[in-house]
């Protein structure tokens, strides 16, 4: 067959264009995670999974959660003492800790960091607002920090890990109009962590590169082959994220993989799935101020109508543990004796009839808001819808976004009748779950969006919050949890098993419920 010159050129062009894709495997020493990035790089403005993972690598904290179950480890702190009344906390810092610009981290930086968190007033400030004022943190000497709390506060110690310590001298030089350098730090680095950001590489929500900081104060003796560079390349769509892991262009996915994608990764020769029980509750919220959920029998009817086992076994494929109470089953303060509500349509029917007899409008359509783009919340809604239909309840699913729903939950009247969400680990303390979800002092926040009110529970949770010893606090949380479960204000479904796709070349992955294993300093890459 003879080819014309034009045909030859076309074939040659196509052959070049469609030739084998170059460099499919990850480059040595470059680790490429693909989970969502934080909305900006300032650890005092954003507190979510992406922000926590970023801060664990670029910043240091006084204490840090490590391992699973999460344990508080002293990090920048060498030693600490607490006064008997729990009001004064003194911390001694390590000497010679270097920021990425080479200057030394001292107590002034710790004081500035807490003051900045309080002044910016964003999510990381929430646990400190009731107990710290700007002058509550002081530096008696360059290596000592003193916290003087307004009142004793149980979760205080656990929340210390939230605050990243920033370079105060660097930030003061970048402040504009008293903004605490919020604009500058949104796209820059003022940390001392194991990795330093390369600011020029940063494009919000698209990519950021980090390189190893050889002078990190912990040293690198515990990891002989540390990763040199992190190239964070988030992918928006789960299927692309998984394909990228399988084709070697990503080393790590997020930890919310759908079960079908887990099966797909497990069949692949070059990747695997790390499965770790975490502390993340899936909860269906019922607005206790709106009919029919202002009726306890209506709430119990719904609690018995959800097919927990079917959802966990078939839809989530077992990557979750049934968790029938309002705090994770692997944290202290969880009442081990609580059985909760099981899937039983006969019981649901009995409660349905009781509720109807008491005038609850059970046959009126009920709306449940599900979260886009989180498919699992839709699946839970659809499963619930089919079971409720057998009882004669018309459940309508409404697609919504998390932002809309959290905004709507500022007032009881605008809070949806039902909505579904997870409660993740911001700090490892029962207060993060039951404390903020069922104490009526938190009404108006999305965590307390069922608008539950029980004075006895309020008293128990308030008391537990302002005690210091875990031994004293645990029984209070257990008792409060039993009371809350008896009132059935919400439907607690499961405690999540995090499933994170990892390239087989990744070694040393350490899961922790705080940060979902995103701390890279422990990892290395096989050749």
């Amino acid at each position, binding site marked *: 067959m003879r080819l014309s010159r034009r045909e030859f050129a076309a074939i040659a062009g196509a052959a070049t264009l469609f030739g084998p894709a170059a460099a499919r495997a990850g*480059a040595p020493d470059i680790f490429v995670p693909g989970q969502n990035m934080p*909305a900006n790089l300032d650890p005092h403005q954003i507190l979510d999974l992406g922000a926590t993972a970023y801060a664990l690598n670029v910043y240091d904290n006084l204490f840090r959660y490590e391992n699973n179950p999460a344990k508080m480890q002293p990090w920048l702190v060498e030693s600490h003492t607490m006064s008997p009344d729990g009001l004064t906390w003194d911390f001694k810092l390590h000497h010679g800790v270097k920021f990425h610009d080479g200057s030394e981290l001292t107590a002034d930086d710790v004081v500035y960091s807490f003051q900045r968190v309080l002044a910016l007033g*964003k999510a990381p400030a929430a646990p400190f607002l009731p107990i710290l004022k700007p002058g509550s943190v002081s530096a008696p000497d360059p290596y000592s920090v003193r916290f003087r709390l307004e009142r004793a506060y149980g979760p205080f110690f656990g929340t210390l890990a939230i605050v990243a310590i920033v370079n105060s001298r660097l930030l003061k030089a970048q402040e504009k109009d008293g903004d605490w350098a919020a604009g500058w730090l949104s*796209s820059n680095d003022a940390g001392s962590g194991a990795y330093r950001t390369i600011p020029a590489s940063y494009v919000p929500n698209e990519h950021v590169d980090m390189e190893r900081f050889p002078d990190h104060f912990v040293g690198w003796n515990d990891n002989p082959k540390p990763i040199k560079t992190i190239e964070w390349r*988030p992918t928006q769509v789960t299927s692309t994220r998984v394909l990228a892991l399988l084709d070697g262009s990503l080393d790590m996915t997020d930890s919310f993989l759908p079960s079908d994608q887990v099966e797909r990764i497990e069949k692949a020769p070059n990747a695997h799935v790390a499965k770790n029980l975490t502390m993340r509750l899936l909860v269906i919220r019922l607005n206790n101020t709106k009919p029919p959920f202002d009726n306890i029998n209506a709430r119990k009817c719904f609690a018995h109508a959800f097919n927990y086992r079917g959802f966990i076994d078939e839809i989530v494929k077992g990557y979750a543990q049934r968790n029938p109470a309002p705090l994770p089953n692997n944290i202290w303060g969880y009442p081990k004796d609580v059985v909760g509500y099981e899937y039983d349509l006969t019981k649901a029917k009995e409660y349905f009839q009781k509720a109807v007899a008491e005038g609850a409008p059970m046959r009126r359509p009920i709306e449940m808001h599900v979260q886009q783009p989180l498919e699992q919340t839709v699946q839970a809604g659809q499963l619930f819808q089919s079971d409720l239909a057998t009882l004669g309840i018309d459940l309508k699913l409404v697609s919504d976004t998390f932002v809309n729903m959290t905004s709507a939950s500022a007032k009881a009247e605008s809070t949806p009748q039902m909505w579904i969400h997870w409660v993740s680990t911001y700090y490892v303390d029962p207060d993060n779950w039951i404390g903020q979800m069922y104490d009526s002092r938190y009404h108006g926040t999305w965590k307390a969006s069922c608008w539950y009110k029980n004075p006895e529970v309020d008293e128990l949770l308030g008391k537990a919050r302002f005690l210091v010893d875990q031994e004293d606090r645990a029984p209070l949380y257990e008792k409060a949890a039993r009371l809350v479960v008896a009132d059935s204000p919400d439907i607690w479904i499961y405690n999540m098993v995090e499933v994170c796709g990892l390239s087989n070349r990744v070694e040393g992955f350490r899961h922790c419920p705080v940060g979902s294993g995103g701390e890279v300093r422990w990892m290395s890459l096989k050749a």
Partner: protein
Amino acid sequence: MVKFLLRRALYAIPSLFGLLIVTFVLIRVVPADPAAALAGDNATPQQVEAIRHQYGFDRSIPEQLLLYLGKVVQFDFGESQYSHRPVGLDIRQRLPATLELTIAALLIATVLGVPLGVVAGIHHNRWPDFVLRFVSVAGVAVAAFWFAIMLQLLFAMELGWLPLRGRMGSGVIAPPEITGSLVLDSLFAGRLDVFWDALRHLVLPAITLSLGGLASITRFTRAGVLETMQKDFVLYERAVGYPRRRLVWIYVLRNSVIATVTQIGLLFGALIAGAVVVESIFDWPGIGNYAVLAILTADYKVMLAVTLMIGVIYTIVNILTDLVHGLLDPRLWEQL
């Protein structure tokens, strides 16, 4: 022609102004509270209230609108409430990627769609027409995300011929920016390696995005060709034995594509909107991705600026479409 352009440009101003006001009001009346979103997951109602005040969200909507308009007329679109970067800068950085993708998709759709439409038209009710009708209906019906994943599975995963995602390979250094199109800029810079890399990254998203447009252009051209083939001048030319190929591809085609050109103009806007899905799947760093994240986080200044920008592009493309109409059929100048 100059008078026409000036007139259309003046007409565009009130349209864009209206678009901005409607979008502003719609964004501010939906329940999403930007202050709550900004305060973050763990914030207290007091914190949300403080942020609402700090960012001026507690002012009345007309007051907020006036403040915003005052800045927009100076081309100041404000800052993203998350990245603290000027929205105008973000859009300027991302728009070229979206335009490159959209123009590539439109080129594919036009270059393939017009000839296919002609072939379907001149083989009316014969097998090429049936096949192309089936293909074009399928092209409109197939969901972009499904088609994108199929392309990824086949060409990136199975055959390994093309990259899975992104606009450029890891470690590839972009050429100096001239047009904003990586493909063109790398050619201008004489960087053939970057040119091939950029082109290979462009292929799958552009094909995905072009699918609906290809189907629609094929159908419009087919309809135009069918109509023109019935015209007297065509019958006359055929009767006198004018070469068929020349008749079809020059005279019939020229008289058939008026509706297609309008369709191409409208498609440009539709493709920019469609790019939202395609950019998300292929991690294409354009404004589609940017807009989706802004919607999910209630970053309303970004939403407003992106809407306005799409409106401006739509307006420009409409003016250009009218211009091309006039060039194809000068009689239309009178009507325009």
